[in-house]
């Protein structure tokens, strides 16, 4: 029939063919699965991970085994597991701040429940968690920017006064009132989502987003002159110049603070006059 050499060749052919087929199928499967994984790689803007999840969602996804123990131990039903129809990787836990925000339990039961370390067990103080970052994203809709008093986000914030503070500025529309504007500070914001949940608008003007989406970053080489100057104790480039102005007599210019003000020597010696520099001081003095 066939000589041993022919048989050998045939076997070699078969071996090569089966190897090629196997390798091809393997490459195809691996590629297909990798492509499938792509949409799940970035978190949708409105989905937040539980406390202690890695900042890079891919790191979280590599560790999370999708068991739902964090969901089970969440006392407020904040967390839920993604299903196939969600944009979040199937089976992984997430929450939507506008629906149910994180209540920032002090004992962090979700982190304690996690068997895989996907929720970092080193997180013991909930204030250190960074689930996301609140952003006052629509300044046109936020009524504080219309000069109306609201401050609901400021008042509901669990890291009150630190994560959200209020900044006063001039109300140009009326010319005589203040705008009281909430400001978020990323040093303190945990991303719990209570502000977004509480926002009185039909669609929240303040939204919590995954940090990598919300946070900008100046280049690593970027230096702020005044900070460098403070560190060095003196100007790093040209020597500081004393500014010279043609000022009226008895007035100085404090160019690092208050601006134009009376020279110290010229300030009134006694306080007898009812007309002090500031009308407020006069009011605070009360009636005598």
């Amino acid at each position: 029939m066939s000589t041993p050499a022919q048989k050998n060749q045939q076997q070699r052919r078969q071996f090569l063919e089966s190897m090629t087929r196997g390798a091809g199928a393997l490459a195809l499967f691996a590629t297909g699965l990798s492509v499938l994984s792509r949409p799940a790689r970035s978190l949708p803007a409105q989905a937040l991970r539980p406390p202690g999840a890695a900042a890079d969602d891919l790191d979280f996804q590599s560790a999370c085994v999708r068991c739902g123990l964090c969901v089970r131990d969440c006392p407020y039903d904040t967390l839920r597991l993604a299903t196939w129809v969600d944009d979040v990787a199937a089976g992984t836990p997430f929450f939507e701040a506008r629906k149910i925000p994180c209540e920032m339990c002090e004992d962090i039961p979700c982190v304690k429940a996690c068997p895989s370390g996907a929720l970092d067990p080193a997180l013991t103080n909930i204030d250190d968690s960074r689930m996301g970052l609140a952003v006052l994203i629509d300044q046109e809709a936020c009524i504080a920017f219309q000069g109306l008093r609201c401050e609901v986000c400021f008042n509901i914030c669990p890291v009150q006064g630190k994560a959200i503070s209020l900044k006063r500025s001039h109300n140009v529309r009326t010319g005589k009132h203040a705008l009281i504007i909430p400001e978020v500070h990323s040093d303190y914001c945990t991303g719990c989502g209570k502000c977004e949940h509480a926002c009185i608008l039909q669609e929240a003007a303040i939204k919590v987003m995954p940090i990598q989406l919300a946070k900008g970053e100046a280049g690593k080489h970027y230096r702020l002159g005044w900070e460098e100057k403070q560190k060095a104790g003196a100007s790093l480039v040209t020597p500081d110049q004393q500014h010279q102005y043609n000022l009226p007599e008895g007035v100085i210019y404090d160019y690092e603070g208050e601006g134009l003000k009376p020279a110290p020597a010229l300030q009134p010696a006694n306080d007898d006059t009812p007309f002090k520099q500031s009308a407020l001081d006069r009011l605070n003095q009360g009636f005598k």
Partner: protein
Amino acid sequence: MATKALQIGKDARQQKGWLRAHKWLLLRRLSQLSVIALFVSGPLLGAWLIKGDMSSSRVLDTIPLTDAFVFLQTLFAMAPVEQTLLIGAAIVTVFYLIAGGRTYCAWVCPINMVTDGAESLRRKLNIKTRINLSRSNRSILLGAILLGSLFTGTLIYELVNPVTMFQRELVFGMGFSWAILFSIFIFDMFFSKRGWCGHLCPMGKFYSLPGKLSLLRVNASKRDQCNDCMECYVVCPEPQVIKPALKGAASETPVILSGDCTNCGQCIDVCAKDVFTLSHRFTTPITEKLESSQREVSL
């Protein structure tokens, strides 16, 4: 032909009675349903015997259990190893090293009820399937999944794994997995005989690995009684595993040692001659009499 399909197991039923001819099937269904009941009793009745899902759970709020396949994927995705997860996976691995690797498939996995249903219906209606898949697909898939996890740094297969997805949605509320399950049913019934569990599911392939070493095994201990009715080959989900044990040389072990065997016991149920029993792997080979050597000649 349809009548022939109905003949399967008739001898066993007549000889042993209906109950004994369905003993292992009933036990398996009991086991599978109990596992589901254990997991859903928490969310449904508030009795938290087991919390979590079959990927990872906590028994009585203390003992961790972790699916060894999911754990392996996290290793390949280069996730840092957490002690709890490691202990859970170790417990599960040791369990299957004792109970038989793919015992997971036949006794625990809820998908098995669906694919068993599709297969028995296919057999009753005598549907001829056209797609012949290679059983080695499972190994290729398993390799691809682990490589994919390595390259992408995430558990890519868990995005689509119908097995864990269905198990999870049983416990956490149904999402979309019933549709995938239905597709598997249709695929197994009309397109590929034992297509999912027998030819595609990489999870089953993974569990066949500890199965190669596992203690609990099906044993063709009375193989000299075999009357060559071939019914065990028909009902077995992995028929290739039977022959070496049943028709092996006298010096070879009658124990089914292949990791692919799921310890489902369908061969035990269907055999009118009680050739098969469930035993451990260290059964000494029976030095058979003359007739076995005659049988080998006739084969």
